[in-house]
């Protein structure tokens, strides 16, 4: 069966797998095997376990929708991250998110400083006078 994971940045994953286990915090777990009935589900915070032969890949998903039809699984996710096990993937995603928020805060300070400086420079150039 084919699995496509899409995030706002584009396609994250697009490959053929044996089966998919969908796990979500509020719903519990279920697996989609070949020729599963068409299904629509939502994932608040959870993960997908992609099994391909002996390989197992985990994709952590935050706020996602899942649709399965004709052996094609579409996962639409606000944020998703691939990892070798669910803990490390989740950790990584959380770390990335935390870092992002931290960076936002830092940039807020830098921005305000830089803008003040720019305004001063414009004033000094007497750009408004002819």
């Amino acid at each position, binding site marked *: 069966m084919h699995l496509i994971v*899409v*995030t*706002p*940045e*584009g396609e994250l994953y697009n490959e053929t797998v044996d089966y998919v286990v*969908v796990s979500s915090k509020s*719903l519990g777990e*279920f697996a989609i095997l070949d020729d599963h*009935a*068409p*299904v*629509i*589900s*939502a*994932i*608040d915070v959870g993960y997908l376990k992609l099994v391909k032969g002996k390989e197992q890949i985990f994709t952590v998903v935050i*706020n996602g*929708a899942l*649709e399965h*039809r004709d052996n094609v699984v*579409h996962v*639409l996710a*606000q*944020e998703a991250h691939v990892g070798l096990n669910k803990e490390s993937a989740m950790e990584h995603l959380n770390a990335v*998110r935390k870092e*992002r*928020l931290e960076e*936002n805060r830092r*940039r*807020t300070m830098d*921005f*305000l400083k830089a*803008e003040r400086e720019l305004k001063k*420079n*414009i004033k*000094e*150039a*007497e*750009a408004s006078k*002819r």
Partner: protein
Amino acid sequence: MKSMRKIKKRMNATEKTSQITKAMEMVSASKLKKAERAIKSFRPLTEKLSMVLSRVLESDRELSHPILEAREVYKTVYILVASDRGLAGPFNNKVFKAFDQHIQKEHENKEEYEVVALGFKAFDFAKRKGHTLLHDNIIPMRDDVQFIDFQNIADRFIQGYLSGKFDKIVVFYNHFVNTLTQEVKHQTLIPLEDNPFLENKEEEEATYRSIYYYEPSASNVLNQLLPMYAVHVLYGMILESKASEHASRMTAMKNATENAEELLKDLNLFYNRARQNAITIELTDIIGGAEAVK
């Protein structure tokens, strides 16, 4: 007439400024391309999501959700999508002006609405005008904006809507028409007016309507997906606003560069005149001195 030194100093400053504006123009041009690409890559996701939602809603016409139903409005949330930085021509002010006019027309006092300000400029504006803000921190609108940047606040107003604290959520943003034109639009984000999901029913789709089953239930899926869809729509608007910002800044910086060049031309003229003046004075001095010696 100003002294030569002063004119020279100003010429240098203008020259430097024009270099900066020129660089900013080029940076904005490349960022605009990036923003346009982001819009393009984002669109399929929204389409797919709205398709999934319409499948769910078509499966059972009885299904409903507060987000789909308009109710009497007591309290409105306005989301202002602006930018972090200025120097983008009328980009930010256009949004604020449209918002001001709307407020004056629709509301009598400040109790009737709350504001969500996305971007430094919007935050400044809301603070200056004394609007009630839904959040205390500045929400930055970075060029590489991501869901997580505004996830917190989005959860907050959606929860507020679902719990009945707010009855309507409206977004003010710059709609990107093309590089030269951007227009301010205000659009109701929640409730989703006249249910966009039930319109696209094609015959071929009808066969799929009943065969889906939902994990765990259709209404549960709906509860999860509708807020997500609303946030997606907001994200789409933010992306458009980003593209508008870059386009607007590009045009503004282009004008600024042209003006600086014109100014430089004038200043050069002044400078030459001042220089000639100084030479004449020097010459008269020398001649006067020589005459006196005779």
